[in-house]
């Protein structure tokens, strides 16, 4: 009943919703058509920022007005047109903003706006200025389409669109050798994931006959997710993955998420994607696009909660990726590579949260991560800019004197990602760890503690590598300008900027212009206080807060409806699967029976609260210990040699090369090209052509121009015909 209320839609067409996605598209078109002729940086920058600014304003208005998406339980719908209708299959070009997509749209537009502003300063002087902003606006269009789409297919359009823009922007520096292969790598790795997404989409349609996320009575469209919520829960067996049921859907969709969100085994593209400009890394490869996988999983949480096997896989992959990437991140020397592995690691956290059923915590972490990771990336961009496109941390150090604003703001991001209290990352990461520890519904007994342990180790490593980054960059001794003859000199812009090109290291580092520092400051503030919307009850109760914090209240309806049915008996007993008990922890209704938003909630018991407080304390200790370790290890010895295995990223790229890419290359070259293409296809065509030529050479002699020759041919033909009839006539007569 409640789900009916939740998903019974407001049929009034909120036509404003469409402007959220079309404003950036318009900006992209204007910049592409007009900006490329004008080549006026001010014009291009204003168009691009204004386009995103319009989206931001509309998004905030639609989310927070009196019956906005975040206040009402009903999503705001905007039906543009029916896109495809074939038989029972129906896909609309329609947008919907419910609480989940509302939160996403808010931080995408807002962080996107800040990054656009930052980029106007960062990209100053680049030849491809108009191209950059056209792509960036196009990306905003695709990302918002992905988030606001009301069905799987339109979501997939956005999903592909962001992949395309990611490809274009990674390969933005045309004159940079590593950019093109990095772009291709990202594109191909994403294609592997998309394969899963598309198959999952088809399975959803085959199972439910619908691909819509929402019920739309006015268009006689019913929600696929609601249809799945009425199905029985799949058993917790490996067999279920291949059974073609809900578990298969969930696993296939998760394959899509691993591609987009850079999880094991498809994470390899993200570190290479750092070949793109830094604002791109901040916007696409940290704050927004890579969290699309998390968005999709949370959007489809009904599917995942019906597929315990898939949930388990998600949790394992998430935790594994978090730890794996964190260990690599600790040994990287390129400032952006550290942040890239950090992003992968944090995305792993989000999937860990999804996997243990804490979808709200996952989205909370997505949001805080968008703030502090965008902040860190932009800060690193500011550093790179100030260092004249030096990315190697071994040639930095002591920058806090030269770039005080960047330093202070990055400190906020650093403390946030480490999980120091008050800062945004503390609340979200702590919540994920606590939910993992206390998870009982979706994790086999015992595994929750193991997952928590992995998460805690990752938290420690996170604090260590981020401290290392900060120490190597802003503290310790100044190492720039010392040795130019050093081996691999990484420049980002290929010497486009005049001063950087002529004498790369002659200048002292300088603070960045206002257009870059203002976004840094705003994001630093958000990194500091952005977590306060989701203070857990265990802490807020100390100050007399409500059992459910604002963030949980806001997202509750989206994930609040859980299946009533239970798993089949034998599957349960086989693997000691505990069926989801309808209990609440800490007032969270995430997996209990359906709730009204802000409705009656059980107060958590005092022991649980105390346990949660204890774990919060443990998180804080972990963060502080990590910072201390990082400080002690790297303050004196910033160039400390890290383990080779980690520095070389566990040789994953090499392993993939040897195991997958090389065999494909060899098969393609030796088999498909030299044998199949040259031998079979070309052979067939060449033989055919040669035969025709030979025939023509023969028949040519019939047309040599002697009239009597033609006459002879006619005669011969006539004789043949007469002979034929004469022969048959003779046979008839003989009979």
């Amino acid at each position, binding site marked *: 009943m409640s789900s009916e209320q939740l998903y019974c839609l407001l049929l009034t067409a909120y036509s404003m919703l469409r402007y959220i996605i079309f404003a950036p598209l318009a900006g992209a078109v204007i910049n592409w058509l007009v900006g490329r002729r004008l080549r006026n940086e001010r014009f291009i920058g204003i168009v691009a920022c204004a386009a995103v600014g319009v989206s931001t304003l509309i998004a905030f208005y639609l989310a927070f007005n009196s019956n906005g998406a975040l206040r009402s339980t009903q999503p705001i719908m905007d039906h543009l047109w029916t896109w495809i209708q074939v038989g029972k299959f129906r896909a609309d070009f329609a947008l919907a903003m419910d609480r989940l997509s509302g939160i996403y749209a808010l931080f995408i537009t807002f962080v996107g706006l800040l990054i656009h502003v930052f980029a106007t300063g960062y990209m100053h002087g680049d030849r491809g200025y108009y191209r950059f902003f056209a792509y960036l606006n196009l990306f905003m269009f695709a990302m918002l389409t992905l988030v606001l789409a009301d069905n799987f297919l339109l979501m997939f359009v956005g999903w592909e669109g962001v992949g395309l823009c990611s490809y274009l922007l990674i390969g933005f520096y045309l004159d940079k050798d590593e950019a093109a292969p990095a772009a291709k790598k990202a594109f191909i790795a994403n294609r592997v994931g998309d394969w899963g997404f598309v198959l999952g989409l088809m399975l959803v349609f085959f199972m439910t006959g619908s691909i819509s996320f929402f019920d739309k009575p006015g268009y006689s469209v019913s929600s696929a997710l609601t249809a799945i919520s009425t199905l029985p829960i799949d058993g917790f067996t490996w067999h279920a993955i291949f059974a073609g049921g809900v578990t298969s859907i969930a696993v296939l969709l998760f394959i899509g998420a691993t591609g987009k969100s850079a999880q094991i085994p498809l994470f390899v593209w993200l570190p290479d994607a750092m070949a793109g400009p830094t604002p791109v890394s901040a916007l696409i490869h940290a704050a927004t696009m890579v969290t699309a996988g998390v968005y999709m999983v949370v959007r489809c949480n009904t599917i995942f909660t019906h597929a315990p096997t898939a949930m388990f896989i998600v949790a394992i992959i998430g935790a594994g990726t978090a730890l794996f990437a964190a260990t690599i991140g600790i040994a990287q020397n390129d400032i952006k590579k550290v942040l890239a592995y950090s992003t992968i690691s944090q995305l792993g956290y989000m999937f860990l949260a999804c996997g243990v059923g804490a979808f709200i915590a996952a989205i909370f972490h997505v949001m805080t991560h968008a703030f502090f990771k965008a902040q860190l990336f932009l800060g690193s961009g500011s550093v790179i800019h100030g260092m004249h496109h030096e990315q190697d941390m071994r040639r930095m150090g002591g920058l806090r004197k030269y770039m005080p604003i960047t330093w202070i703001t990055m400190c906020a991001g650093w403390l946030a990602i480490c999980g120091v209290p008050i800062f945004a990352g503390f609340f979200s990461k702590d919540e994920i760890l606590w939910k993992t520890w206390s998870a009982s519904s979706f994790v086999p007994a015992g595994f929750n503690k193991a997952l928590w342990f992995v998460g805690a180790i990752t938290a420690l490593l996170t604090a260590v590598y981020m401290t290392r980054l900060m120490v190597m960059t802003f503290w310790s001794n100044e190492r720039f300008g010392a040795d130019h003859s050093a081996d691999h000199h990484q420049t980002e812009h290929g010497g486009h900027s005049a001063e950087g090109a002529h004498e790369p290291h002659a200048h002292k580092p300088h603070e960045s212009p206002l257009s870059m520092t203002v976004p840094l400051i705003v994001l630093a503030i958000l990194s500091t206080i952005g977590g306060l919307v989701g203070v857990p009850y265990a802490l807020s109760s100390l100050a007399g807060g409500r059992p459910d914090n604002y963030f949980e209240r806001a997202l509750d309806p989206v994930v609040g409806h859980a299946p009533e049915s239970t798993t089949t008996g034998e599957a349960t007993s086989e693997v000691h699967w505990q069926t989801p008990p309808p209990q609440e922890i800490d007032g969270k209704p995430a997996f209990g029976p359906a709730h009204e938003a802000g409705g009656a909630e059980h107060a958590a018991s005092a022991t649980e609260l105390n346990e949660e407080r204890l774990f919060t304390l443990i998180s804080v200790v972990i963060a502080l210990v990590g910072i201390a370790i990082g400080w002690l290890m790297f303050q004196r010895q910033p160039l400390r040699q890290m383990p080779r295995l980690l520095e070389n990223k566990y040789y994953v790229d090499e392993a993939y090369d040897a195991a997958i890419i090389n065999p494909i290359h060899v098969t393609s070259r030796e088999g498909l090209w030299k044998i199949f293409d040259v031998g079979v296809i070309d052979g067939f065509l060449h033989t055919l052509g040669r035969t025709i030529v030979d025939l023509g050479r023969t028949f040519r002699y019939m047309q*040599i*121009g*002697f*009239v*009597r020759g033609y*006459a*002879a041919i006619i*005669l011969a033909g006539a004789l043949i015909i007469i002979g034929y009839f004469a022969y048959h006539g003779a046979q008839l007569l003989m009979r």
Partner: protein
Amino acid sequence: MVPQLSWYLALSAVLFTIGVVGVMIKRNVISMFMCIELMLNAVNLTFVAFSSFFRDLSGQLFVFIVMTVAAAEAAVGLGIIIAIFRNRESLDVDDARSLKL
């Protein structure tokens, strides 16, 4: 002695063969032309003979059509021959083997 059908047919066959052989061996375009006429008229003779034999007038009707076609053919053919002769100053068909001059 009443003429038999086979006499007419034999004569027609002989005339036709002479025409065929003439077309094949003569190089003078006028002679070839005349040989073609000979073939046509050999066929006409067959038509008339059969018409009389079967008491059916449609054979004679065909003869008129053939003669009409032959007349038209003669007009066009002679025109072509004159054009060829003007261009090449020769009536030898073997000289007229290329389309271009």
